[in-house]
């Protein structure tokens, strides 16, 4: 059986922009510094030679200190950034809970945001229509779904973001430290 997630010898270098503060468009075009020819002093290794694979139907946890590269690994799996070397392979639809409600627009209603957020996460309009009640009930926001999102409390905001992301029915669900959502009851509901 092919694993759902497979990382092979993945390394990720971040650039440090401090030393390149004065680089201009002209110099970038002339020296092609935009196409990576970076000095070692200008990079920061976030991940070095990481390999792991996760079987389908299993839950895989990564623990570590601050700055050890957990979020970077997650972003690589989600495809938001690309590895500097090595390969990342993921089977199926991904939903990443790296930040809840990242695409919400504050001025428009919760209802409209559910639709747009769902489309951003790869659902079709009809699929969202079908799951809309489920999403709203899960977020416990039935009374406030037509209010602009800017009037929501941070807990309501997170709950709605979580409810949309979980209803994408992903094959691979990536969760960063975002499950500290809402009260105890809601946290338990999320973990189920």
């Amino acid at each position: 059986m092919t694993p759902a997630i497979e990382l092979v010898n993945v390394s990720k270098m971040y650039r440090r922009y401090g030393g390149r503060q004065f680089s201009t468009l002209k110099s970038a075009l002339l020296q092609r510094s935009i196409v990576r020819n970076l000095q070692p002093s200008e990079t920061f290794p976030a991940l070095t030679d990481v390999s792991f694979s996760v079987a389908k139907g299993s839950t895989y946890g990564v623990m570590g200190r601050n700055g050890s590269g957990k979020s970077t690994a997650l972003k690589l799996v989600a495809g938001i950034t690309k590895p500097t070397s090595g390969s990342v392979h993921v089977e199926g639809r991904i939903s990443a809970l790296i930040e809840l409600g990242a695409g919400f627009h504050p001025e428009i209603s919760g209802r409209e945001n559910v639709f747009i957020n769902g489309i951003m996460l790869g659902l079709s309009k009809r699929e969202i229509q079908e799951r809309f009640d489920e999403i709203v009930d899960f977020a416990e926001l039935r009374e406030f779904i037509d209010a602009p999102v800017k009037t929501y409390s941070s807990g309501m905001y997170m709950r709605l973001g979580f409810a949309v992301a979980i209803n994408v029915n992903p094959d691979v669900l990536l969760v960063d430290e975002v499950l500290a959502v809402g009260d105890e009851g809601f946290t338990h509901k999320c973990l189920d």
Partner: protein
Amino acid sequence: MLSNLANLFRYRGLIQSLVARELKARYRGSALGFVWSFVNPLLLLLIYTYVFTAVMPNNTEGVQPYALFMFCGILPWTWFSSSLSEAANSLISGGNLIKKVLFPAEVLPIVSVLTNMVHFFLGLPILVAFLLVYQHFPRPENLLWFPVAVLLQLLFTTGLALILSALAVHFRDIKDILANLLTLWFFATPIIYPWFQPSVRKFHTFFDVNPFTHLAVTYQEALFFNQGPVGHWKWLLGYLGVGSVLLFLAGYWLFDRLRDSFAEAV
């Protein structure tokens, strides 16, 4: 690159709902709401009419009524310039999406261009109303060139928007340079003066190189000058048509090359 380009078609639902969101959010909370899309160009046209008929009358022959002539060029120019300035900022202001969600970044500048296109379309009824008020009726066969010009402008603007948005992520100065450059570009294009003016003809090479000249002149010929059929179509299709397609492909290529750097740099 080609497969990414094909994906663009798949994102049409996303693009559509983001354009709708921008339009809804822009007027949310204002008393007039969507009516502003009509009121804004109307007020602009009234101000220009007053200034150029009462304050400093423009009596240039061949472009009377002057306010109407000017409006034919300003309306598409506004679409062009606001698209570019919004697009240049689009990746930076949408940074949250690029960093936190798996999101096709090229959608953002395209949404800026399309949102402003909708505003352009909403300004057209005002233009039509003024054409009727002035009893200035364009020739129907000339109007056929109008959609061609709109289509080419869309392609040209999108190409530039992709380039600017991708570069602005790395070079923030572009936003400020662009604002000034657009002002210069506006006055270097025959929008508030006619292209057949002798002082313009003298430097015609300079004006011919400017792509927006051909759009502005086509709009003016189609909507305002009804002495004869649109004579500018060779320039429009030949230079601007081919140029826009190339610019769009080049813009998309550059955007695609820089795509992986966005999540780290915004």
